[in-house]
């Protein structure tokens, strides 16, 4: 038996052990069900805020209190490296800066912008430019994964992709490189398109392989041919060769070079796409789980931007169900944020990106499922790429115009309805009636704000009228702020097959005009589904016709048409005009002309004799110079003036 002192010591130790166990168990339970649950709810844990980055965490811990100092030094060095154009050092420093402050979004935004915008333009080669654009976007993507539910980061992902790839000075090259990023590197391997001619011992084009490539990637090939002057297949292959090492969606090909290489991890691949979600804002938007093969022939920066813009919407509070342009209060602060930009403008970008996709397709000549006839322009056999496959069309997988304008229109409609910019007719009449009563009782005009700013402050009897008035005020304000009517009605009309057909004719006519095939171009313009169809569309869709941009475009179409008329029919027209003017002058001298549209101006015999060239200038009246059946001018004088000024500004000097 131990002595009493030893017994007490043992007892004390037992008490300590029990106490430790109790405290440890309590702390564990409290941590598990108390602290951790609360931390999870508030997204305080690293894994709730972002993808966990162990190296970054280790570095931050090792720096202890000197992180601020290290940040300053690294930022200073980064500026120095940038000033001296030491891009590889800059990149390393930038990555270090973001590693040290992963949950502060400004360094991510600033430095990714820096790489994509400032650094990329320092390089003269488009290939190098593209590299730094992608590096900026990839850096931002890393930032987005480190900062979940941040609408601004997601928005910037879309904006950089769209803005830098599809809207810059060198968009044709950059969009082509973007397409190449999405294509399996084996498929675009230039060696595939070359073979040894056993007869001559020289390397020649592998026509079958090249034709297969054209069939699978018609939009890329067409852009290279039409916009980048790759007039021969060999030049296309050279372009593929020069830019073989673009940042890509796929791993490097395996040494056997037989199988398609696997896709890179989502964090490594380019283009970067958002992750798949359970309840996405737009189920049709791309994610990194989408099958690239399904859209590789038409993917562009706009489509990727659309995916990001749609993803960015998911981090916003819902739109207010009553007041146009407003948002509901934030209910979950860990998952909802208000963006830095005006929220309503922020919300319109998914639809805007889809409109851009449709515009881009039409600008590059993709209208319907007829696709592209590769050698349509070439007359001689020697100039044809595939002389034995004359008339073969590629790229007619979809009715491009109808499909994408349709998607855009749906997106605009949803945007309008969700944000109360598009009110049902009955509701609008009802609101206008109530608002009118309110205004007359309170003596306020249509767009006046009232003395009450909140509904609760308004006396009960006036409340309904006040609300109707305020809804209409906000509706008017935000409709103008977002230019919603333009986007909505444009997409609606552009999605119609007749509009697409008319646009296709204008495009074909323009292509012919550029090839100096003026008579054929004129024929295209005058085809029933071209200018007459366009006129019909303007007549039947007043909201579309009244849009300034549509009117400017109509004016430009008309000018091109009239130029062709002058060039093709000039001599005949001069003669006819002179004769008719003489006759008209004599007739008008005898009796004044009746009111209504005239095709020929009044010319005096003196003018006819002294200024024969002016006869033609004054004598042509375009199809859109008059008024619609409703009595509105097709093109308002002020719009005409704007278009004329812009045309003059864009004209090369000396012409």
């Amino acid at each position, binding site marked *: 038996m131990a002595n009493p002192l030893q017994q007490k010591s043992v007892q004390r130790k037992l008490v300590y052990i029990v106490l430790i166990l109790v405290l440890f168990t309590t702390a564990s339970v409290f941590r598990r069900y108390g602290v951790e649950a609360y931390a999870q709810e508030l997204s305080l844990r690293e894994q709730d805020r972002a993808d966990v980055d162990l*190296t970054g965490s280790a570095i931050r811990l090792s720096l202890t209190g000197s992180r601020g100092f290290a940040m300053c030094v690294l930022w200073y060095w980064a500026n120095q490296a940038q*000033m*001296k*154009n*030491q*891009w*590889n*050092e800059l*990149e*390393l420093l930038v*990555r270090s800066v973001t590693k040290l402050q992963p949950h502060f979004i400004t360094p991510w935004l600033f430095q990714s912008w820096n790489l994509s915008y400032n650094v990329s333009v*320092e*390089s*003269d*080669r*488009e290939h*190098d430019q593209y*590299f730094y654009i992608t590096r900026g976007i990839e850096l931002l993507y890393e930032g987005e994964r480190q900062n979940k539910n941040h609408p601004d980061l997601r928005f910037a992902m879309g904006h950089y992709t769209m803005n830098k790839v599809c809207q810059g*000075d*060198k968009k*044709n*090259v950059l969009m082509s490189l973007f397409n190449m990023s999405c294509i399996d590197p084996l498929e675009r391997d230039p060696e595939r398109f070359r073979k040894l001619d056993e007869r001559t011992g020289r390397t020649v084009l592998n026509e079958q392989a090249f034709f297969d490539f054209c069939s699978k990637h018609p939009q890329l090939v067409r852009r290279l041919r039409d*916009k*980048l*002057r790759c007039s021969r297949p060999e030049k296309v292959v050279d*372009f593929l060769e020069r830019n073989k*090492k673009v940042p890509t969606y796929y791993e490097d090909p395996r040494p056997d070079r037989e199988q398609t290489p696997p896709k890179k991890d989502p964090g*490594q691949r380019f283009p970067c796409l958002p992750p798949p979600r359970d309840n996405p804002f737009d189920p049709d938007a791309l994610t990194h789980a989408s099958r690239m093969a399904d859209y590789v022939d038409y993917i562009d920066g706009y489509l990727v931007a659309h995916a990001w813009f749609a993803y960015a919407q998911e981090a916003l509070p819902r739109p207010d169900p009553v007041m146009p342009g407003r948002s509901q209060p934030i209910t979950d602060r860990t998952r909802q944020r208000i963006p830095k930009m005006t929220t309503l403008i922020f919300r319109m970008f998914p639809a805007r990106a889809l409109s851009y996709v449709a515009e881009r397709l039409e600008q590059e000549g993709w209208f319907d499922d007829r696709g592209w006839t590769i050698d349509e322009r070439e007359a001689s056999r020697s100039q044809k790429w595939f002389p034995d496959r004359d008339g073969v069309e590629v790229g007619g997988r979809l009715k491009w115009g109808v499909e994408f304008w349709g998607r855009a229109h749906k997106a605009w409609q949803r945007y309008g309805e969700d944000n109360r910019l598009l009110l049902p007719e009955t509701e609008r009449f009802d609101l206008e009636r109530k608002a009118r009563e309110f205004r007359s009782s309170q003596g306020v005009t249509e767009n006046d704000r009232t003395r009450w700013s909140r509904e609760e402050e308004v006396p009960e009897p006036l409340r309904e009228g006040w609300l109707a008035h305020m809804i209409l005020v906000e509706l008017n304000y935000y409709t103008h702020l977002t230019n919603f009517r333009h986007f909505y009605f444009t997409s609606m009309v552009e999605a119609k097959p007749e509009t697409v057909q008319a646009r296709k004719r204008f495009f074909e006519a323009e292509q012919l005009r550029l090839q100096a095939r003026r008579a054929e171009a004129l024929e295209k313009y005058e085809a029933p589904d071209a200018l007459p169809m366009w006129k019909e569309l303007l007549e039947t869709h007043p909201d579309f016709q009244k849009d300034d941009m549509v009117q400017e475009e109509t004016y430009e179409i008309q000018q091109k048409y009239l130029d062709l008329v002058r060039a093709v029919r000039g001599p005949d027209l001069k003669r006819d005009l002179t004769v008719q003017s003489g006759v008209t002058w004599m007739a008008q001298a005898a009796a004044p002309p009746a009111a209504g549209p005239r095709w020929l101006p009044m010319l005096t015999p003196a003018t006819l004799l002294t200024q024969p060239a002016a006869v033609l200038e004054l004598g042509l009246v375009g199809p859109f110079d008059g008024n619609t059946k409703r009595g509105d001018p097709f093109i308002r004088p002020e719009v005409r003036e704007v278009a004329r000024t812009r045309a003059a500004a864009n004209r090369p000097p000396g012409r």
Partner: protein
Amino acid sequence: MFAALTLERDPLKFEDLPAMFLFWVQDAGGFAAAGLAVYMLYALAVRRRLTAWTDSGLYRSIFLFALLGAAASYALLGVLQVPDLLRSLSSSAGAPPSPWRVALQQALPTVGGAFALLGVGLPFLDGVRRLRWRRIWALARLSFKEAIRRRVLWAFAALLVVFLFAGWFIDTKPEHQVRTYVSLVSLTMAILLLTVAAFLASFSIPTDIRSQTIHTVLTKPVEPFEVVVGRFLGYTMLMTLILVVASGLSLLYVLRGIDPDAAEESLKARVPLYGELFFAREEGGRLIRDQGESVGREWEYRSYIPGPSPPSPTKYAVWDFFSLPSRLADRDTVRCEYTFDIFRTTKGRDDTPVACTFLFETWRFRGRQAEYNNERNRLRQEGKLSIRDIDAQLAEKYGYYEAASVPIADYHTLHVDIPASLIRNALEPDPAARQELESAGQPIVPLRVRVRCEDRTQYVGMAKYDLYLRADDHTTGADKLWFSWNFFKGAVGLWCWLCLVIGLAVALSTYLSGVISFLCAGFLFLAGFFQDFIQKLAMGMTVGGGPMESMLRLLRGTNLVVPLEDTAATRVALGSDNVSRLVLRCFLYVLPDVDRFALSDYVAEGFSISVVQLFFNLLLLIGYLLPWAVLAYYLMRSREIAGPT
């Protein structure tokens, strides 16, 4: 800028040696004079003879002569400065100083410095005479073994971590692979080696003193300065060994799986032959010296030439090569490499690069352009020779070669291969032509390269080191081998840093405690990286003024360029900044020129490090460490524990 060696300061040449030596005498002499003054005050205070340190009459005489010489020189210099001081106070222009006064003002700091160095160096040399290499070697070995026993080598395991995992985090542009890897391993090695070296060197002597082992050493017939030298050599040997091993491993790391594009740009050891650059405009067939243009870039390293814009004269960047090695003439072609910056003022055509024309002409060409063109056209029409052969033949005959409208890109090394017959023409002795040029008073430039931009509205930027001839033969196929050799030469730069840090730390530790020595050595070394900035600060050239003025501006929220209001606070701030500038100017002389030793950029960009550079690195190292060694000698002697036995 990638793919070109950016040298903001010209590399040192043998012609710079006399000037370097004079500056060194002035700088080190200034500190020596300050030391002598302190010593004199000390001797006066303790009533000790100034020459008590020696019994030799000769030494005493030389010492007193040096002391008097230094005092007289600096006193005279002070007297000569008085008029300048008075003029600056009265703010009147006054008459310009006479030439003899200017000459004296320039010579006296050197003379005074030399006397002071003699005065300080004499006891030091007397002490050095007593050193014995056997004892130093024993102390060096002891230091080596101690360091190994302290398991400092474990610190280098961190290098393995970099080798193993860095690749996961570094995703470079393919052509930047070599330079990124070289930068990474250089940085990692520098951080690890320098930290360990500073740590070892700083704590060795203070630890000996604290643990009293130094008494055991010094009771033996060991000179105190032998401890300092022994420690320095021991640690230097250890770190050299580690550096060699680490460099070998790093080289293996860099060389594995190199991308062909990166190998093409950087996996080389080019031996560049640089010319002298000037800008010129062509008027009436003659080149007239002109300025390159600024396109508004913040970094003004390059000047720009515009594309042709008639009627303005065409602008050229001209490189004159004054010496051409004769071995270049034995090749088929000589490679001329270049990297220019492109500044576009308009978009230009998609996928179409800017073009430049390169005109190579030897001193014997003398403007026979029409004759050359006619013969070239004739030969082309005959069709008997290929274009290449025609150009080679005419280059030898006329001394002219033209590469027209060559597409260029920035951030890539591009090249033009010129026929070696052009070099043969340049090296041909032509007494008649030589006499003609000499009588016309024209310089004989063996090879001149003119470059003009061919794209209207675009600018091309150039600096002296952007265009060079390859003195090495690029066709040997031994690029990897030369790169590897160059990699080790690059490690010499790091070795110099190591010596610098060890030398500083050991010298400081003779008087300061370990931690303070470590911090001081680290501070001096790191401050050496910011020498340019400190110099600007000391000269009052920084935007926003000195520290106090900057603080005032911060507090008042005043813009950097807005003049400050003339208030009492402003005057106090500006006055204190002036004082701090004086201190900084003195401090500048203590800082090592760390950047001069850095050679990793040469390796990373694929440029060979010449023996001359290595020689100058060593010379600078010795020049910097020698005063510290003298200081360490006196400090060690001044300590109680360090009496000679």
